[in-house]
C-alpha cells in the first residue's frame, strides 16, 4: 500500500517534471525562432525594398510616405540597359570571381597541404601572419598596387582583378583548407602511402574527395567575396574589365541620384549572387560545419 502510493506520487512528479521540461524546450524553440526571423527580416528588408523601388517610377521612388502599392513598371530596367550594357559587366564579374576562386584554390591546396601535413616550427606563425594581412586596410596598399599594375599593364584588365582578388581571398582560403585537412585522420593518408600513392595521387584520390564538402564551401565563399568586392574594382578598372560593382557605381554620379534606376541596377547586380547563394546554401552550411559533425 505504502510503496504503491509513493510510487504513484513519484510517477506523478516525474510526469510533471517531464512536461515542464518539454514546455521549457518549446519555449526556447519559440524564442529562437522569433529571434532568427527578426534578424533574417532585418537583413532582408533593404534588399526587398530595393527590389520594390526598382519597379517604381522616379517620382514614386522618392515620395513620402513611401508607397507600398503602385503599378510596377520596368522602365527603370530598360533605361539603365540603354545606358550601359549589363551583360558585359556581368560577364566580367563571372569571369573574375570564378577565375580568382580557381586560382586561389590552386595555390591554397598545396600550401594548406604542406602546412597541415609537413608542419615546421614556423607554420602556426605563418598562418597567423597570413590572416593578419586581412586586417590591413586595402587603401594602405592602393598606391603601390596601382603603380605596379600600371607598369605591368594590368590596369583595367580581368587578369589584374583576378590576381588581386585571389590575393585578397588567399589567407581565408588557405586557413579554411588547412583546418579541413587537419581533420583528416593521419592513418588514412599513411594507408595511402603504403598502397603506393605519390603525393599528387594522395591529394587527388584521398585528400580532395575527403574534403570536397569543405573545399566546395570554401570555393563558394571565395566566389561570393570576389563578386561583392568593390574597392579594387573601382580603383583598378575603368570600362573593359569593370565588374558589376563598378556598374552600380557608374549610376550614382553624373546627374544626381535616381533611386529607381539605381535600384534597378543594384537589383541586377546582386541578383545572380543572391540566387547562387540561395541555391548553394545547403552546401555552404554542410561544408562550413564539415569538421564539426564528422
Amino acid at each position, binding site marked *: 500500500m505504502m510503496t504503491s502510493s509513493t510510487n504513484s506520487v513519484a510517477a506523478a512528479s516525474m510526469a510533471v517534471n517531464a512536461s515542464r521540461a518539454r514546455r521549457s524546450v518549446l519555449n526556447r524553440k519559440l524564442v529562437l525562432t522569433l529571434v532568427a526571423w527578426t534578424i533574417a527580416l532585418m537583413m532582408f528588408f533593404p534588399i526587398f525594398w530595393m527590389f520594390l523601388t526598382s519597379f517604381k517610377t522616379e517620382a514614386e521612388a522618392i515620395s513620402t510616405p513611401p508607397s507600398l502599392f503602385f503599378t510596377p513598371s520596368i522602365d527603370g530596367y530598360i533605361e539603365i540597359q540603354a545606358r550601359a550594357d549589363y551583360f558585359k559587366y556581368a560577364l566580367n564579374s563571372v569571369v573574375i570571381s570564378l577565375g580568382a576562386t580557381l586560382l586561389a584554390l590552386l595555390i591554397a591546396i598545396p600550401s594548406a597541404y604542406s602546412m597541415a601535413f609537413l608542419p615546421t616550427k614556423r607554420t602556426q606563425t605563418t598562418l597567423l601572419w597570413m590572416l593578419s594581412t586581412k586586417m590591413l586596410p586595402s587603401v594602405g596598399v592602393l598606391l603601390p598596387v596601382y603603380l605596379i599594375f600600371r607598369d605591368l599593364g594590368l590596369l583595367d584588365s580581368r587578369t589584374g582583378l583576378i590576381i588581386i582578388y585571389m590575393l585578397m581571398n588567399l589567407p581565408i582560403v588557405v586557413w579554411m583548407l588547412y583546418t579541413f585537412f587537419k581533420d583528416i585522420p593521419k592513418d588514412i593518408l599513411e*594507408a595511402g602511402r603504403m*598502397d603506393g600513392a605519390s603525393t599528387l595521387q594522395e591529394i587527388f584520390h584521398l585528400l580532395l574527395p575527403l574534403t570536397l564538402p569543405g573545399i566546395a564551401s570554401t570555393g563558394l565563399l571565395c566566389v561570393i567575396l570576389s563578386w561583392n568586392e568593390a574597392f579594387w574594382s573601382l580603383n583598378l578598372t575603368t570600362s573593359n574589365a569593370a565588374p558589376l560593382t563598378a556598374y552600380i557605381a557608374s549610376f550614382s554620379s553624373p546627374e544626381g541620384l535616381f533611386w529607381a534606376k539605381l535600384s534597378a541596377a543594384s537589383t541586377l547586380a546582386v541578383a545572380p549572387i543572391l540566387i547562387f547563394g540561395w541555391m548553394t546554401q545547403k552546401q555552404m552550411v554542410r561544408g562550413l560545419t564539415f569538421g564539426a559533425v564528422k
Partner: protein
Amino acid sequence: MSTLTLKNIVKEFTSGSGASASTTQVIKGVDLEVKDQEFVVFVGPSGCGKSTLMRMIAGLENATSGDILIDGQRINDVGPAERGLAMVFQSYALYPHMTVGENMGFSLKLAGVSKEERAKKVNAAADVLQLGPLLDRKPKALSGGQRQRVAIGRAIVRNPSIFLFDEPLSNLDAALRVQMRIELARLHAELKATMIYVTHDQIEAMTMADKIVVLQGGVVEQIGSPMELYHHPRNRFVAGFIGSPKMNFLDVTVTDVQAEGVTVRLPDDSESLVRVAGQPEAGSAVSVGDRLTMGVRPEHLILDDSGPLGGQVQVIERLGGVTSLYLASPDGSGDGKIGGLKADDQADSGWILIADGDVASRVGDNIRYTFDSARAHLFTSDGLALPSLDRHPLTGLTRQDNSLSSVSAAQATDV
C-alpha cells in the same frame, strides 16, 4: 620468400627547436631476425616503442640509425610502397569515400593494373575473407569486424611478402577477437607470408606467435618462442610480463650455492633448493647471503596445510573450473593490494594462487601452500634470471605443433 633483419635500429624524436631542442631516444638499438613465413609478435608495455618499430619497418618513419634489410637488401631508403609490405592499422584506416571493393583495389589502381585484373584479385581476396556480398558497401555501413576484414583484405590484395599488424583486433569485442584470431592464424597458414604483429593481448601473443619479442623502453628484453618465454624468462621484467595472472615475487636469501642448484631461505625459515645455475647469463655469480627475488607463477602454487608459505585470503574469484585466491604476501608485506592489479613488477605485495574450482577456502582464512621448486625462478637484485639447469621439455615446441593442419601436412608428405 621473405626475411626481415633489423640491425642496431635506433630512433630518436626531436622536439622543440633551436637551443631548447631535445632529443628522445625511443628505440635504443634493436636487433631482430625474422625468418620466412614466421609469425613474430611484439609485446611490451604502452609507450615502449612497438608501433614506432613497426612504422620504421613499414617505411612510414625513418630510422635514425641502423639497417633494415628485407631478403638481405638494405631498404632504409626505399619508399613504403616499394618495400613489398602491407600494414593493417589499429584504426582500420579504410578510405571512407570508397566502396569495400575500391578500398581493396586502390593499390592496384595506383599501380596501373587493368580493371578486369583488379576485379579478379579483389574478388579472390574477398572470397578468402567472406567479403563478397559487401564489396559495394561503403565502410560506414560495416560492422567493426567487417571493417577489420576489409583492412586485412586490402593488405592481402597487394600480395605482400610481409604483413604488419599494429594491434589489429584491439577495437573488437572479445568474441569477435577470438574469431578473428583464428581467422588470422588460418590466413597465415594459407598465404604463407611473414607476419609481424603488435598486441597487448597475452592470449594473442601466446597462441599466434612463432616468436615473441618483448620490448621495454625501446630495448628488446627477450626474444623467444612463447613456451620459452613462459618457462625460461631471461629477466624479471619478462617473467612478470608474460603469463596471466602475473608471476608472484618474494624476497629470499641465498643459503647455499652448489652445482645442483641454489638454496634459498623462505620467510618461515625453511629452505628450498631451486635448480638454477649460480650465475646469470651476464653478471657476477651469487654467493651465500645474497638477497634474491624468487618468482612462482600463480598456477604453480599448490595448497598444502604444511606448506612453507602462507597468507590470508583477501579476495576469491571463482571461475567454476578454477578459483583465483588473492593472498597477502607470504613475507607479511601484503597490505591487501590485489595481485592482479599490481601497477608494475615492482609492486610485490599480494600473491595470487590458482586453485581447483572446488576449493572451499573463505575470504579471511589463513591458508598455507607450497610450490614446485622445479617451477620456481630466481632473479638477482638487477632483475637477471639465474638460468634453469633443466630445459622445460616443451620449450622446443613450435606453433605448428599445436594445430591439426601441420599434422595432416606431415601425414600427406608421408604418403
